[in-house]
């Protein structure tokens, strides 16, 4: 069968060109103007999807194991820590090299060195680059903050004693305080290694001339419509993992064990900003994998989240996995009405009919949280069901009466700040107002731009807020608890205005502790602190639901690499695609 997979019209690429049958086709939901690792804002962003297949950081997450486990990527092994935890040495893989590119002498890529790693991280520190990822480096590496300040003040660049190339292949990092989360930070694609030569040659156009060490390299860039990557011939020898989570063998995820990566020849990213065309292209077989659009959720899946038979017959598979995301309602703990009244916060939590929200707005696809740490983390307690994180109107009313006694009269109207002004957000506001009214509480809703929520809650806080929720950047509990810290260098994200000296103290210990059973125990204690004090109400956990054609295999969703970040492990059966796709 002559099919478009062999010579296809590339949706969004402006011309017809040969497409390898072993190519993977994915959707980008936003236009990507270029890629530069230091500007990756979110793991689900288009830039992250493209960049993380071209560039590599020192570490990466094991593709299959859950809870998530960090393994070496450009590093040859895990860091060698000093006894005091204040310095570590990282050796680089000898066979890791930059892809061939005209920016190198004779166009031939060269091995990655420790100097490249230092150069790349200094770019994050350079204030002229305005990298948001600096927030994760700040105050950690000796001399790096001073280096940033010098560049800002236009004074001579000081040396950075905390970043030292021992030799071409060995990097030594000296820290201002113990930082065991370092390996997770260095597994983030924003810390990927770039060559100085590319920056010098391409300057501002570096965004369109990526030169990385990864499994793919740029083949073509069609502005606003798509990006095509092809297998990098200089990619080092790396193999598909031979072990994984217990259920992986039965799911066929170990079928490619030991095979050389990457398994697909090309990656075609198609920019499709609206959901309906993406769905139609998926049905035509031109897209291999797609998150199920809300409008088609009920058509595709039954109540138990299994594919309906007609879709099974079409050769589709469904993947459901919990994302590391928690939607919550936060309290302003600086508001005396809220802060001094635990029964009031409990009443509000008990009045929230989370299941109604889930059914009404999300087709029932989300989960109801029992705790704050999401599944997928080793610190998550599956059996934990917080007594207040549930819907019980009678108990809510009883707690409200208790709250009125503490307040000394009727509770004054509360204000809920919501991010966004769309009709959907307003409907959610009306729903929450109704719930609280049923519990005997009056609520006013005010709306701000969703991305201005944090600054508005810092500067002019309302009684409560309903914002974007909390999405983990790396699978360490400090990433969650940092939002509740009131003192110290890390106290930058506390829009709850929550203050608990015991919690702050525990956070300091937790942040410095290497992974151990004691650390997990401390983490559980801190989670209990929060559940007890209730500066926020767990609202919903989100499940990522996507469908794919069965010619795309060895596919396992991963929370910390984005939906398109680990393409090197995927396999596409071109023959099956040709047989099954509609002409």
């Amino acid at each position, binding site marked *: 069968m002559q099919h478009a997979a062999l010579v296809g*019209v*590339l*949706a*969004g*690429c*402006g*011309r*017809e060109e040969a497409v390898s049958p072993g190519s993977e086709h994915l959707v980008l939901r*936003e*236009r990507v*103007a*270029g890629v*530069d690792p230091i*500007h990756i*804002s979110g793991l689900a962003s288009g830039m992250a999807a493209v960049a993380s297949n071209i560039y590599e950081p020192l570490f990466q997450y094991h593709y299959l194991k859950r809870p998530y486990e960090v393994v070496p990527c450009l590093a040859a092994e895990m860091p060698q820590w000093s006894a005091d935890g204040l310095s570590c040495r990282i050796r680089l893989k000898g066979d890791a090299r930059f892809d061939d590119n005209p920016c190198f002498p004779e166009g031939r890529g060269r091995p990655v060195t420790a100097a490249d790693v230092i150069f790349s991280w200094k770019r994050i520190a350079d*204030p*002229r*680059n*305005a990298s*948001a990822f*600096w*927030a*994760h480096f*700040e105050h950690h590496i000796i001399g790096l903050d001073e280096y*940033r300040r010098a560049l*800002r003040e236009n004074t001579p660049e000081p040396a950075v004693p905390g970043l030292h190339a021992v030799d071409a292949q060995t990097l030594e990092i000296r820290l201002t305080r113990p930082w065991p989360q370092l390996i997770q930070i260095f597994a983030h694609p924003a810390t990927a290694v770039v060559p100085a030569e590319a920056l010098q040659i391409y300057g*501002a156009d570096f*965004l369109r001339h990526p030169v990385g060490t990864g499994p793919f390299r740029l083949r073509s860039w*069609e*502005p*606003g*419509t798509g990006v095509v990557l092809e297998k990098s011939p200089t990619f080092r020898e790396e193999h598909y993992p031979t072990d994984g989570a217990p259920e992986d063998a039965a799911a066929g995820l170990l079928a490619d064990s030991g095979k050389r990566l990457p398994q697909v020849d090309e990656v075609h990213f*198609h*920019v*499709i*900003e*609206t959901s*309906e*065309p*993406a769905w*139609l*292209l998926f*049905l*035509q077989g031109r897209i291999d994998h797609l998150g199920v659009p809300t409008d088609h959720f009920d058509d595709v899946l039954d109540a138990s989240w299994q594919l309906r038979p007609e879709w099974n017959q079409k050769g589709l598979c469904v993947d459901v996995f919990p994302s590391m995301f928690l939607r919550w309602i936060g309290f302003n703990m600086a508001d005396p009405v809220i802060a001094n009244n635990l029964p009031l916060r409990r009443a509000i939590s008990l009045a929230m009919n989370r299941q109604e929200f889930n059914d009404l707005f999300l087709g029932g696809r989300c989960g109801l949280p029992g705790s704050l740490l999401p599944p997928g983390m080793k610190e998550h307690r599956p059996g934990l069901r917080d007594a207040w994180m549930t819907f019980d109107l009678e108990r809510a009313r009883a707690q409200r009466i208790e709250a009125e006694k503490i307040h000394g009269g009727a509770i004054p109207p509360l204000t809920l700040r919501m991010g966004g002004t769309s009709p959907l957000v307003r409907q959610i506001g009306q729903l929450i107002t109704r719930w609280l009214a049923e519990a005997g509480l009056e609520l006013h809703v005010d709306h701000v*731009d969703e*991305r*201005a929520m*944090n*600054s*508005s809650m*810092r500067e002019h806080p309302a009684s409560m807020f309903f914002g974007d929720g909390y999405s983990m950047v790396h699978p360490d509990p400090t990433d969650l608890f*940092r*939002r509740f810290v009131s003192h110290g*260098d*890390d106290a*930058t*994200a506390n829009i709850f205005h929550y203050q608990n000296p015991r919690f702050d103290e525990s956070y300091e210990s937790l942040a410095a502790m290497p992974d151990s059973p004691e650390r997990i125990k401390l983490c559980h204690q801190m989670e209990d602190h929060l559940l007890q004090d209730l500066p926020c109400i767990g609202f919903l956990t989100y499940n990522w639901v996507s469908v794919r054609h069965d010619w795309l295999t060895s596919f396992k969703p991963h929370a910390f690499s984005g939906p398109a970040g680990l393409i090197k492990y995927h396999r596409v059966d071109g023959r099956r695609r040709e047989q099954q796709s509609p002409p």
Partner: protein
Amino acid sequence: MKRFLIRRLLAVVPVLFGVLLLTFALSRLLPDDFASRLGGDYASQEMLADLRWAHGLDKPLFVAWDRLLSGNIAAAFDSQFIGHCRRLFTLDFGRSWSALRPVSHLLREGVGPSLAITVPVLLGSAAVSLLLGMLAAFVWRTRWDRWLLGACTLNMSIPGVALMLAAQYFVAFEWGWAPVHGWAGGRGLVLPVLLGIFIGLGADVRFCRVVLLKELHEDFMRTALAKGVGGWRLYAVHALRPAIGPLLAHWLPRLPLLLTGSLFLERIFGIPGLGGMMVDAISARDFPVVNAMTFIAAVLHLFGQTLADIISARFDPRIRLS
């Protein structure tokens, strides 16, 4: 004519200055901190200050009065507003805050796809609506006129987006007559262009009909009829010529839409034009892009109006530019 053009050019200056002031005020005085937006949840106050510095947002808004009073004139006018004016007037629109590339590069990339849609849509809808408008005027007060008006009303009643989605599903997906999505050269443009022409047709046909009917009932038409002018010449020459003024006044101010007018078509059919870029920029508060697009749209609008006046005067002897 020269005096008219000079007067118009002089009038353009305060209008453009007003546009500059308005776009600047909107971008700087909104209660929204770009640095907090970019910095994310964990940004410290020091980092937020660095981000403002990197984007020039730490400079004084209009004038640094302390520097002015101390006699440092150059530093006093190193302000956000002066920079804003300089960038727009020199057509160096700065760097996009979200796409991180020079705005001029982004405009260059998007202008081709935008024009590929909007030029045929604008010309096509003008030609078709003029023809149908003339036809409607020709069959005035007959049942054909009523049918045509009914069709126009129906066309105006159907939401454009619904029509686009329906056409995409049936014409492209079900019947396979066009690509579902994508900038696949000429082939990918046919369906969006036809839709673009069709969607605005109802209102334009009704407008053309009304303008032509008005001219057909003027005294000079009776004169023409008395002189024995009839058939197509009556409509195409005697009625159309004086109607050119109002018709151009209707269409030429749409020139800015050449850049931004195909937003929904771009989004639904995957055309990488400037309309989608403008919406993305507004949503991301990417003010260098928003300001550049607004400035260019204002210039095009003024140009369109001036052109409409000149052409109207050229074809309609009742109009004098003085």
